[in-house]
């Protein structure tokens, strides 16, 4: 039961963060938001008995992806400057 409530909260957070990320003015916030969504999703995966996927999502979805995003953002900033 508690798990379910946690799951619902995570679900709501995911949606909320996603919307927030998309409407954030700053790109960094958007990227971080997406990373956070990924992280939350990986918790959800854990709840759903998928530790493998959770690890992967955490490592790749919220980790590497975000890093790549930032690299690109940085690069673009430099191109602007």
């Amino acid at each position, binding site marked *: 039961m508690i798990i379910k409530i946690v799951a619902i909260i995570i679900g709501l957070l995911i949606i909320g963060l996603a919307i927030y990320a998309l409407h954030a003015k700053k790109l960094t916030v958007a990227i971080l938001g997406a990373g956070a969504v990924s992280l939350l999703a990986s918790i959800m995966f854990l709840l759903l008995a*998928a*530790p*493998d*996927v*959770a*690890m*992967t999502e955490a*490592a*790749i979805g919220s*980790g*590497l992806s975000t*890093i*790549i995003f930032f*690299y*690109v953002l*940085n*690069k673009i900033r*430099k191109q602007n400057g």
Partner: protein
Amino acid sequence: MVKNLYIILVLVGLGFMFYTFADGFESADKLNPVAERYAKQGPDEVGAANLVTAVVVTYRGLDTLGEVTILFLSAAIVAFFLKVTYGEEEKRQTRSVSEIMQTAARLLTPAVFLLGIYVFINGHLTPGGGFQGGAIIASGLVLMLLAKPNMKVSHTLIHVVESISGLAFVFIGVLGILYAGGFLDNSLMGMGTLGSLLSAGVIPLIYIFVGLKVGAELSNIVAHLQESQNEA
């Protein structure tokens, strides 16, 4: 704005379509026959305690090969795309990184690498495997790069690792055709005892290579992105 209205309309339609999935969605009480077979016979046939790994590496090995290929392609494309043309060799990033960061990175990097290796070596036993391990290794590289932005990553090393592991993956697969039941057949090597490190046929071997390869490829991408930062 009218266009956004259309988009909303279409997305509502899409939601309506998706709702048919959610409506009355019930998870099964038991596994379907295919999964059931994996659950029942998997430990014996494949010898991997982690059934996900069994599925990923053996039953659906070809998918994994494709997946590795995709990463390989992405890395190749990014490399091909962001081909660095060092206009002025000296025009490197000069922003200094804090001492603490550098030290921490120096300490942490080997640990992260080790963790990555652990994750893919134990892929058939515990959660994790080649992909996760590879990603962790790449994160280690990121850490290194954060500490030393000017560090030149050895592409040759990356490529050699990538190539060897990739070739090995394919080679094992082909050996499967020649000496066992088919491409990527796991029974090429003995199954060993379920739950021990040296079990599950060629899975650990494959996962090692996958891990190395994924790690190399992701590193490759990161390295290219990093280097392109310095592009003229």
